[in-house]
């Protein structure tokens, strides 16, 4: 645990840096005998997982921190062998069903049932239930989500589910209503800056406030990224200066370059060049929806107000189609082509007005 992100992760609900009243509520919730299924959602890097681990510690004590990684094997109805990695302690098991793609339903049904059907060995000094943590619930297929809803009710006595999602818009209402939804908003920039200061103090470093704010700004309200960036700053150039370069993830820079290319020229030739860039992004594993969001953000900045709405609606439309399809590159390029067409038309009209 030598990265600051891991090293200085709070372990106790009361030691959390922000959303403190929420932490208090959670603590009191746990201290009652029982608690319902939870659906924790918020953007990435907001501290969902940290809060859940604190909660588990509150529930089961430090035993929940002794984690082990295991690989579990399942067989799909079509006789395909799949394996999935789980992280578990004696009291909980954490799994990311989307790792197995479209077979996530099998994982949910088998794993949750397995866990839920075994009771705790000594229920005397322990809680009566185990906890199953499911990551990225919003990326589950509809089948898997429907498989989940019955399981949630059936095994409520022996197991509690904690679902983690980025947004609940893609979680079906049936599941939403069965859970206590807890929103973990992203920290504000000042909150991030204060966390950075605290961490640097623990490390015995002095962080100039300007640099802290710059890091917080460029981290996109993602605390994990902010801490990593801060540490990267430290590694690159130690006595901090307020105007030193803040390293950023390369893919962000790359998306920005791509957007600049799109804006610079609108022609089929340029489209082919943009395609190469998009391919590069996809190869490096940047999720296509992130590419969409990044491109849109950059493109909209350079648009006339009248176009912004149109562009955004097109982006939404193409992103939706992309989720229905298999080949993201087709859809991203369709969006780029559409944008180019609209932008070019706008430019030509603007020029026509001038003359």
């Amino acid at each position: 645990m030598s990265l600051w992100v891991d090293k200085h992760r709070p372990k106790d609900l009361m030691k959390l840096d922000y959303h403190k009243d929420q932490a208090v509520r959670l603590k009191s919730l746990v201290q009652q005998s029982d608690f319902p299924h939870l659906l924790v959602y918020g953007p990435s890097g907001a501290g969902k997982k940290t809060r859940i681990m604190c909660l588990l510690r509150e529930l089961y004590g430090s035993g929940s921190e002794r984690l082990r990684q295991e690989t579990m094997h399942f067989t799909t109805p079509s006789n395909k062998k799949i394996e999935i990695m789980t992280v578990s302690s004696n009291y909980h098991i954490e799994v990311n069903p989307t790792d197995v793609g479209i077979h996530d339903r099998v994982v949910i049904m088998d794993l949750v049932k397995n866990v839920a059907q075994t009771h705790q060995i000594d229920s005397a000094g322990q809680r009566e239930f185990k906890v199953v943590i499911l990551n990225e619930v919003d990326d589950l297929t509809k089948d898997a989500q429907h498989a989940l809803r019955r399981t949630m009710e059936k095994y409520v006595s022996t197991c509690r589910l904690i679902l983690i999602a980025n947004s609940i818009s893609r979680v079906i209402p049936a599941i939403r209503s069965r859970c206590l939804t807890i929103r973990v908003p992203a920290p504000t920039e000042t909150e991030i800056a204060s966390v950075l200061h605290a961490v640097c103090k623990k490390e015995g470093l002095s962080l100039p406030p300007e640099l802290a704010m710059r890091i917080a700004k460029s981290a996109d309200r993602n605390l994990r990224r902010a801490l990593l960036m801060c540490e990267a700053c430290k590694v690159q150039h130690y006595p901090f200066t307020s105007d030193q370069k803040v390293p950023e993830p390369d893919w962000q820079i790359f998306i920005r370059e791509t957007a600049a290319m799109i804006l610079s020229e609108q022609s089929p030739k340029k489209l082919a060049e943009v395609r190469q860039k998009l391919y590069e992004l996809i190869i490096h594993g940047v999720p296509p929806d992130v590419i969409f969001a990044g491109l849109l953000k950059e493109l909209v900045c350079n648009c006339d107000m009248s176009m912004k709405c149109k562009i955004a609606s097109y982006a939404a439309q193409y992103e939706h189609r992309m989720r229905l399809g298999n080949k993201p590159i087709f859809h991203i390029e369709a969006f780029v082509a559409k944008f180019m067409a609209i932008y070019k038309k706008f430019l030509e009209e603007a020029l026509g007005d001038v003359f």
Partner: protein
Amino acid sequence: MGDFPDPDEEYELMYSDDLELIREIDDGTDSKKIKNKVLPAKRSLDFSSPVQKPLLHTQQSSANASSLSESYQSQTDIISSIPTKRTAEDLFGDINDIDFDDLGLPSKRQKTEEENDLELINKIIESRKMRQMLSEPNRALLDNMSNYNVSKNLSLKIPKWAFMPFTNWDGDRVYVRMESEDSWEESLDLAPDQISLKSMFTPVWEEARKILEAKKNRIEQDLVQETTVNDKQDFTDLWVEKYKPKSYIDLLSEEPVNRCLLHWLHLWDKIVFNKDLKTVEPQQRNSFSKRTGQFQMSNKWRGKKDEPEMDEDGRPHHKVALVCGPPGVGKTTLAHLLARLAGYRPVELNASDERSTDQFKNALQSATLMRSVLDAEKRPNCLILDEIDGAPIQTVELLVRWCTAKKDEGKKKSRVHVLKRPVIAICNDLYATSLRPLRPISLIVSVGAVCSTRLSSRLTLVAKCERVYVAARALTALAARARGDVRSALHALSFLRAGGKNGDQIKVEDVENIAIGTKDNSQSIMQALQTIFTLNNNDHEAVLKVIQAAGEYERIADGIFENYPCSRSDSRLLVSCAISELLALFDITNSWILRTSNYSMYGVLPTLLARGHDILATRQPTRVKFPMTSQEMSRKKTEMDSILWSIWRGSTVYNTKKSLKLDIIPLLPYLLSPVLRSANIQLCSDSERKSVLSCAGAMCDYGLTYIQRREQNGYEHVIEPDVYRLALFGPEDRMRPSPAVRQTIAAQQQLEVIRRNEEMMNRSSGRPEKCERKVSKKEVPSVEVKESRLPNHLQRLQPKAIERALPQVQKDFFGRIVQVAEVQKQADGVSGLITSSVFYQYREGFNNAVRRNVRMRDLM
């Protein structure tokens, strides 16, 4: 005919053959006069022959004769009833210069003589014309029609102009106009459009043709009736077997191919029939090459000249001939025939035989090492491995070993047998994976599809032999339909024969309708793409059909995607928008089909692609590239994903893949390249050392290691898994630390791994030491060790203490008690042992080693 001496001579020259014939025929009739009489008649006959021929036909066809003659009558009536003076003068003005007396109305006796002659001449000319007409009826018809004006030169009544009467067998008399040379010249000059009555002639010709056909049919029916008698024994043999080539001449495959294989077989002569061929052979080859050098083909089938054709053992360079080609072109036949021709006994091993390695080995041995006993001629074997592309790969490897490894071993050990017989392998697919080891060592002879003209001529032959009457066009169609597959063509022909009702002529329609023997016409993706991108005037259906024939819609969609930006000029990007919308729709539909496994929508996919043709097609030819990018990209993505996966699996800190991918890995390169002076770690400042330590810790957390790998210039530390490739775009090396730094980090990382393992051990041993590591690093280790756990030697000391209770009295050699030295007594004291962390023990005088447990972490 003294009036026209010159034309006569000319005529003699021109038709001397015919005259000769005539002379032979009427030997008896010698009169010069008759000959003179004949000559002008012949001249006119020459012009009028086409008219006479139909007349002759009418004579033959008794059924239609009356109607024909009626129509003819009416025609001539009309003609003769136009006695316009002017036309008569215009056209026949030169009639006067013909000697009427000479020609005049011939006497009765003369006439019969003349008629005999004329009939003979008619017959000869008619039969010749007939033959010509049969071969190219239209041309002959046209020629004659344009040359000859029927109405003016023929009459059934006695005409006013100079004429020559003819009587046919039925007694009808026709008067043919006699013309002078000049008028003939004039008639030649007439423009063809002036010949107005040409059309009136056609019905007659049509009728005649019908009669001819009827006659032919009658002959055919007779033939079939004959053949049906013979049919019984014919059906016992398959035609494919029956008409198998019996000799080299009969082979249908290309000449260079045949030559190539035969030449290769002859190369074996030296080792197989090693009597005298050894010396003769090179000369033979030389002469052979000289002979064939005249042909331009000679080098093609010979392969490269520089390649030695024989190895040192006197065997051909290629041990195996690999004959490949589509099915049904006669590969097996070729191999068998040539093997027999070269003096071998072909031994065939095909897919129907057991082809496990053992069986195969047996077969190989028996075929190549032994000699057939039963064969009277004692011919050496030639192994033919048919359908080798279906053989298991081990078998092929065995064959390769058999053929190649022997070459080396054969010299060393005489025990091992050298392959001394030719082996011909036959396959359909040259590039089958199992053939990969065989390809480099073998002579590859590819037999192409038989060209359709050769095939159709062979089919004609077969049809003739089988007495099946097939229209020539039908055979050509059949040959084209078989696409060079002789076997399927023959099968189709026999099927047609069997299906035909009592020997009807097999027509083109039958061939077109036949369902067998047609292979699926598969189109390549490239053809489909080319069709999509080029505009032709075909209907939409044609494009759709090509796409459907090609299949693999996803690849075609990829192809469209990759090719559309450079297909049409598209400044406003409207085409791009349209086509990308279309492709998106395709993708959605396709993935819906795949996801739900519901193929009811599958039929829509080619239509979607065909729609792309409407948007993209241009007249100018575009060079379509094969869709490679998407596969290339997916390959790269898999590579990157595997890096991500290994980091994810290796990391001890649990993160979701997404956060690892988007947040942590992109920033890891910055964290893993600390700014260091390139010096020994011991010489670094405290802060530097700390940064190296944290870097090493981070590497341990995420399961990264530096691995020493040998590069072209010395060793290099390479990070594994390669996080830099995943994190960075463009040139990846820009962030990599310098080799010296890498080495330092690598060393530290290894120490960190040891440290962590130890910590793990401690934890598992159950000691409740909290945050011990952090403290211990800074303080002196020995103090901490003492606190936490008993030193090892203290534990050992316990039994010693019991021992001390009854001290052994040491005696010397003679049994006297030895005085223990003062110093030693003090050293034995317990207090001295406990206080010092280092101690030594004197053991019976033979070992005084200092013993102490040392931990790795204390040395670090």
